[in-house]
């Protein structure tokens, strides 16, 4: 059991993180204090041209030197600092959250066949696979992930989350069941501007892991959710599938449901199931996956984990529980439970304010 939550203002209006923290904290029973986190979009307008790398450092000596050497092999750091936190030493297994605003340098990428985003992915994978005391857990532009092994309200206070203003927020409260609770295992998981929060289990993790590893991704966070991030990056950024169809590929319909579809749609769904059989996620899950443009929320096809969606004017909310949404917005225009496996997609329509 875990708690997931998200909100998006479609006009790009930014609000601070205290609201999402309040909603998430209402679902404390869904976690056990061993992991919580937030993803925020639109928080670094002054550095929006640069990749914001959030890194857990074991120390400010070798680990820092080591990761900076690696980063500078790929480009240059325009600004760096310790992520401001409070109450140092109060969270178990504490790491030092550090951030780098980074620009890849095309001259340093000479001879490589890939584009800038591929370079970032490879750099992150290399740093995390080395396990040398530094772990990159957020690597998008104008967004950032903040997480730790603690309760939602403690993580919010630790990172002073109310000082950040974002047009979209995701949050997660973890109850680790099959894998250890630690800072790197807290959600959201991120890569480029993707962030993922997840309640449930990906029982197809082994198959999915082999699938993404064959395309150069490395699973290093010791938990299943990480693979969801790479599946979305691969299907959407590399294969350029639309969000909704990606949802169908990852939570495919049953064959008897596909057989009952209108012939025009049946072909697409059949092709998705056949093409992405190794990417399809099995097991009980509810996830919210976001990038700069918006989010998709999705459950497994027989709804073994809850998901509630609500909206008020131009703001959309999604959560494991209705009460958490009402804690953020008491007077909603609509609130409902989406159907199992039905991708709920909401996109930013305005400009970030």
């Amino acid at each position, binding site marked *: 059991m875990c708690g997931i939550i998200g909100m998006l203002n479609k006009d790009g209006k930014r609000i601070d993180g205290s609201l999402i923290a309040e909603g998430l904290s209402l679902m404390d029973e869904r976690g056990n204090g061993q992991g919580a986190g937030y993803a925020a979009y639109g928080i670094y307008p002054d550095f929006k041209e640069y990749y914001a790398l959030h890194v857990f450092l074991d120390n400010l000596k070798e680990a820092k030197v080591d990761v900076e050497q690696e980063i500078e092999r790929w480009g240059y750091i325009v600004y760096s600092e310790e992520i401001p936190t409070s109450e140092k030493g109060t969270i178990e297994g504490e790491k030092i959250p550090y951030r780098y605003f980074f620009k890849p340098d095309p001259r340093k990428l000479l001879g490589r066949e890939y584009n800038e985003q591929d370079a970032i992915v490879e750099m992150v994978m290399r740093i995390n696979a080395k396990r040398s005391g530094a772990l990159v857990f957020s690597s998008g532009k104008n967004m950032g992930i903040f997480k730790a092994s603690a309760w939602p309200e403690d993580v919010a206070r630790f990172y002073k989350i109310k000082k950040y203003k974002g047009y979209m927020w995701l949050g997660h409260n973890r109850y680790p069941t099959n894998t250890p609770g630690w800072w790197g295992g807290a959600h959201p998981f991120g890569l480029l501007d993707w962030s993922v929060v997840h309640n449930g289990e990906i029982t197809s993790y082994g198959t999915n892991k082999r699938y993404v590893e064959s395309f150069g991704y490395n699973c290093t966070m010791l938990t299943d959710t990480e693979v969801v991030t790479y599946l979305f990056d691969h299907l959407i950024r590399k294969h350029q599938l639309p969000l909704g169809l990606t949802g169908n590929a990852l939570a495919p319909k049953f064959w008897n449901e596909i057989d*009952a579809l209108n012939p025009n749609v049946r072909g697409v769904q059949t092709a998705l199931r056949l093409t992405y059989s190794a990417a399809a996620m099995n097991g009980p899950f509810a996830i919210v996956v976001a990038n700069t443009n918006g989010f998709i929320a999705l459950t497994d096809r*027989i709804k073994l984990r809850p998901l509630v969606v609500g909206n008020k004017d131009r703001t959309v909310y999604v959560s494991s*529980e*209705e*009460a958490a949404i009402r804690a953020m917005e008491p007077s909603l225009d609509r609130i409902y*439970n989406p159907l*199992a496996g039905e991708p709920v997609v909401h996109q930013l329509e305005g400009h970030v304010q």
Partner: protein
Amino acid sequence: MIENMEHKDAKQIDAKGKDYRTLNKEIRESVNDGINYITVKNVLGQRFIADGIKNRTLRISIFGVAGGDLGAFMDGPTIYVRGNAEHAPGNTMSSGTIIVDGDAGDCVGHSMRGGKIFVKGSVGYRVGIHMKQFQERFPTIIIGGSAYSFLGEYMAGGIIVVLGQNCTKPVGSYVGTGIHGGTIYVAGVVDDNDLGVAASKKEFTDEDRSIVSALIDEYNQHFDSSISIDELTFTKIQPSSKRPFSNLYTMEG
């Protein structure tokens, strides 16, 4: 019923900002003090309200969103929710009544053993999963709107009625998957493809009509509505045979 729920001398409890332990402790202490009418305001997702309380005269009114496992294991009380209920209200309840003047989430009446649950609006997935009957214990769930898939999953006893008001499709798919006892009545058509393994349609008899009619009367009283059985056509769903899974675990039959 509704008048009873908001008794003028009801003990008032404000749930605002309270965690579920504090709130439930307050309710339990009131019950131990002999209080029969309790009104709880500003409920926002607090779980386990009135769990395990054994008391046939207790009436609790809840204003707000009742959290998961409302009235779980309870034996006797009547709970009236002015708002929605989250997952599994009436989980394994033995007797009493839960009335939800709104929608309810997944697994309403999970493993319910007796008593009645009325939901005015719609409900989520797996409603009535594992509900069962034994001797004088007989659970009943009445839903005014629609129910999502896996209604009455592994059902072993009792009755589920879906009235299908204000919706395009009264039930989802896999209705009665694994059912081996009890009856599901759905107002409207249930496609054969939407029946789960072991579920089959049976003739809706006069006896069924009188059972459902009495339950609709009770529903109308609770929600001040005027639904008439004469305007509805029911599909009756029961296990396909007395022992639909007899070959699954044993060699006999």
